[in-house]
């Protein structure tokens, strides 16, 4: 089944890279939407059907942690899986994001296949593996 993905990252370069990784993967992509921060992501989540959210943590206006909190508080959104993509490889940050409801956590830099596999797992509802490089 084709799916819709929402990428939340303040870096246009990173959004483009992630989009390219998804396009080149075996995942069946229907639509890929972009947001430059958590607030924009929330607005898109409330107006579009999204199957998976890929979010950075460090973003202006609303960061990834705040976005996860907002999603978790909204009964219409709280079943949408969120995969965090961050440069922060500390266990403390990882545990914090998972406690807020993230389904998986991939550290930058990442190999394209690492992100593709993590997305497949999340979309299949599986538990996270260690995706840190």
């Amino acid at each position, binding site marked *: 089944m084709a799916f819709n993905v929402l990428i939340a990252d303040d870096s246009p370069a990173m959004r483009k*890279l992630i989009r390219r990784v998804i396009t080149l993967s075996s995942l069946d992509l229907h639509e890929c939407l972009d947001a430059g921060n958590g607030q924009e992501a929330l607005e898109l989540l409330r107006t579009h059907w999204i199957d998976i959210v890929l979010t950075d943590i460090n973003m202006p206006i609303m960061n990834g942690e705040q976005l996860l909190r907002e999603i978790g508080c909204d009964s219409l959104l709280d079943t949408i899986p969120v995969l965090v993509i961050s*440069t922060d490889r*500390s266990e403390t940050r990882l545990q914090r994001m998972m406690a807020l409801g993230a389904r998986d956590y991939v550290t930058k830099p990442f190999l394209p296949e690492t992100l593709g596999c993590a997305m497949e797992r999340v979309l299949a509802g599986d538990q996270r593996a260690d995706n840190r*490089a």
Partner: protein
Amino acid sequence: MQTIALKSSLVEAASEVLESMCFLNVLREEEKKSQTEDALIWSQLDFTGANEGRFCIGVCPETAMTMAGNFLGQSAEEITTEQMREVINELANMICGSYLSRSWKNSLFDLSHPVCKDGAIPALRNEKAILTTLTLDEGAVHLRVVLAT
């Protein structure tokens, strides 16, 4: 933490990012007392948390275009100046984040949004800094971390 260990973490972090995201191999690393080249594209960000300071990466425009092309999967000729700056900013973010996580394991940091500029990297003002220059086939990559403590 010892300066040598901090520098080693910086070189490891930068090498990993450049190799995995830009497909560029680091040939060697050299210690430089100063980074005075004046025709650079450089990106800088501040970090706060277990330690405070700022990170800077500087490269010549041609190297920056190659990095951006490889990062975005386009030929260097297709890359706009804006895209090049966005990629250099993202590389600054990734290298700094990776470096901090390696150097202060399990500590939380906040990184500011990187700012990209042209020209020479600003001179140090009696600050504690880790300087290194990585040599690639495609040019030199100057890295600098200024630490508050």
